């Protein structure tokens, strides 16, 4: 038995350490640990509730818009305010544009260096060696698109900034709607950038995903995890939240069901927090206890009805019935690409639905006391914010973020988190170069600051359609 420690796992947001025990060339046990703590929940206490939108998006510089949206939903809920149609659509345009940015940066800039050989210059030198199997032509194509993707993801941000003011950390999403109005010149500029991004997604990103999936088709057989899924849904298509582009739902033990938010609990048995962190997110408190016996992570262990769930693009596409071919490291990558294509198409429709000149924000009044819940999807998965307002100020704030689900440690019952489960069984023929481990970790697109159906191996995988 050999212990392999990867600290830090790079090319992801934040600080993640992964420890696996390998025996007979396979992973037999795994631990995932978040190694950085900032304490957002405590930072928010006592503030003007409206400020939660700007403060919480600073949880993550890669998916700030999802936090801003979750906070705005929680405030809309707490304040009892109805967001005007334009406000709803502009929020979708800001969030959707950042989904594209995030999915593109993940595939090309965070994931590809696990599979592609880059020129031997910093920051690409000193990588794990071994199983790189792309032919010269494909390798060159993907290296070229790594740099093209940097430009396209920058343009995604420019598109978002048209309505959001700046990215990261947009400013237009506020309680009650958006500060930014539906101006015609902004709509036109957004449409122009979107056309270029859509072309990249449809022509390059889709094809590059197919090339990668074909060359590494055995990754459709590893990295499965719990195969339970959770999605809170995102992108409301009407003003009452009845219909969403990405639906809410759970899929547990092979059975689909609706989301009962009361079933979401957190557990800190193996996390560096005291007992107050255990329970329903609308009641818990987050008090740091570094060094607590038996704990190994700053990430808590959220569970749905006691079950471990995976969240993210594969969970969403699975629950929507849009992609159900398998659960694996490579299926996560494919589902993410499919989702990027879906969002690209929807953004163009939403631009058409804007009514220039119509209101985008509703007046809000901060109540003396209220509670609110904001549920949305981040590019990495289900995101929930819970707020309690008292004396017109934030009394309590709790965020349960996607990577808390995916990279959770063991719970009180000893059940490992989704990523920990997905790592078990991975091949590690060379313990000094645990490529399959980092590839599978990256397939989840972990974001630590915020906190795998099977096909025949070797068979070409060109079956997914955009």
């Amino acid at each position, binding site marked *: 038995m050999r212990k392999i*420690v990867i*600290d*830090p*796992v*790079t*090319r992801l*947001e934040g*600080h993640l350490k992964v420890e696996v025990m390998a025996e007979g060339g396979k992973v037999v046990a795994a631990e995932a640990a978040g*190694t*950085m703590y*900032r*304490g957002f929940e*405590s*930072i*928010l*206490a*006592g*503030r*003007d509730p*409206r*400020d939660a939108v*700007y*403060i919480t998006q600073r*949880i*993550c*510089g*890669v998916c700030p818009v999802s936090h801003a949206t979750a906070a705005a939903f929680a405030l809309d809920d707490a304040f009892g305010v109805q967001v005007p149609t334009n406000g709803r659509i502009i929020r979708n345009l800001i969030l959707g544009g950042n989904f594209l940015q995030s999915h593109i940066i993940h595939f090309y*800039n965070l994931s590809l*260096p696990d599979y592609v050989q880059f020129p031997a*210059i*910093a*920051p*690409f*030198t*000193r*990588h*794990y060696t071994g199983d790189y199997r792309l032919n010269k032509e494909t390798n060159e194509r993907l290296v070229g698109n790594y*740099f093209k993707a*940097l430009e396209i993801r*920058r343009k995604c*941000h*420019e598109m978002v*900034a048209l309505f*959001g*003011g*700046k*990215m*990261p*950390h*947009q*400013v*237009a999403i506020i309680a009650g*709607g958006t*500060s930014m*109005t539906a101006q015609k010149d902004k709509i036109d500029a957004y449409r122009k950038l979107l056309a270029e991004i859509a072309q990249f997604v449809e022509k390059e990103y889709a094809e590059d995903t197919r090339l990668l999936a074909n060359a590494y088709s055995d990754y459709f057989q590893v990295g499965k995890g719990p195969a339970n899924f959770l999605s809170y849904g995102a992108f409301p298509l009407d003003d009452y939240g009845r219909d969403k582009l990405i639906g809410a739902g759970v899929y547990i033990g092979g059975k689909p069901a609706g989301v009962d938010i009361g079933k979401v609990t957190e557990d800190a048995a193996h996390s560096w927090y005291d007992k107050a962190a255990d329970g329903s997110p609308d009641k818990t408190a987050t008090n740091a206890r570094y060094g607590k016996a038996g704990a190994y992570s*700053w990430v808590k262990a959220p569970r749905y009805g006691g079950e471990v769930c995976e969240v993210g693009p594969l969970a969403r596409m699975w629950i929507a019935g849009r992609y159900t071919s398998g659960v694996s490291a490579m299926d996560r990558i494919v589902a993410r690409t499919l989702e990027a294509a879906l969002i690209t198409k929807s953004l163009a429709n939403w631009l058409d639905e804007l009514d220039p000149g119509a209101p*985008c*924000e509703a007046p809000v009044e901060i109540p003396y006391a209220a509670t609110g819940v904001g549920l949305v999807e981040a590019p990495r998965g289900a995101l929930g914010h819970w707020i309690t307002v008292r004396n017109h100020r934030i009394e309590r704030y709790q965020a349960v973020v996607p990577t808390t689900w995916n990279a959770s440690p063991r719970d009180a019952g000893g059940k490992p988190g989704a990523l920990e489960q997905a790592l078990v069984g991975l091949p590690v023929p060379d313990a000094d170069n645990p490529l399959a481990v*980092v590839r599978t970790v990256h397939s989840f697109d972990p974001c630590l*600051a915020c906190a795998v159906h099977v096909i025949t191996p070797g068979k070409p995988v060109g079956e997914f359609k955009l």
Partner: protein
Amino acid sequence: MRNLSRREFLRLCGATGAALGLTHAIKPEILEAFAGPAGGRPPIVWLQGGSCSGCSVSLLNSVQPEIGKVLTDVISLQFHQTLMAAAGEPAMDVLPAVKKQYAGQYYLIVEGSVSTGDKVMYSTLGERDGKPVSFAEWVKTMAADAKAVIAVGTCATFGGIPAAGSNPAGSKAVSDVIGGVPLINVPGCPIHPDRVLGTLVHAIKYGMPELDHLKRPTVFFGKCVHDLCERRPMFDEGKFATRLSEQGCLYKLGCKGPMAYNDCPTRRYNNNTSWCVAANAPCVACVEPGFPDHTSPFFERMPEYGPAGTPSPQPHQGKIIGGDK
């Protein structure tokens, strides 16, 4: 290409948006100044501590020069957690190697605040002899042999968001944990890529840029947002917005432009696309040491310091809320 004088270079930095001519100036400038280590490209170590990675993401939004060019032709980015191919031990081995091989020649860039005191282990990076190593220790170790340290983003420069409220992680600014090495602060939440790359090139080519009392380069942080703001005429005429989506000065809706010193109104973010006030949102003075505790509530009118009951322009925020770092 002709060698630029420092004055000409500063004029380029002061120019905004598409006019920022760094692309044309940057490569020969750097190579000439740095005909030595790492194939003529200055070695850079970029460490991330108590951060959201937003400053790294914002760096990738650089247009002039385009970021791909920066990575391949301009700098030698030896260590950057979000971009480097290496992981785990091979990644951590880079730091002692750079420290030794390029002692006195590499630039250390720090993003994020530093957990200190009895909370120093709240942020760790890598292991030594099976024990986690604190981020604070890495910052001190790598700063000791750096040519200069550049703290980027408001968390690294002033503590920022992690140091707000009860400061649950004992977060401090980089300037509070290192000494004896030249330090430049480039705040912002997130940083503007022009300001970071412009500062870096200045440091490489011409040495330390002119800094204000908060160690910020005056070329980027010398003017008050309120004075540069496109809605300043509305303030002077008393045209105040009564709701954010209305056109008007946002002062009464919480704009902290009068206490913020930078060039956002002219430089704007994301390839000159927009900035906070242009999106009908108040400036939250994110480049100031008071962010966020003393620049919030974000949507409430700021306290009046001025004798005439008007806010403009305010003395430096640092003097009001706790003095120089």
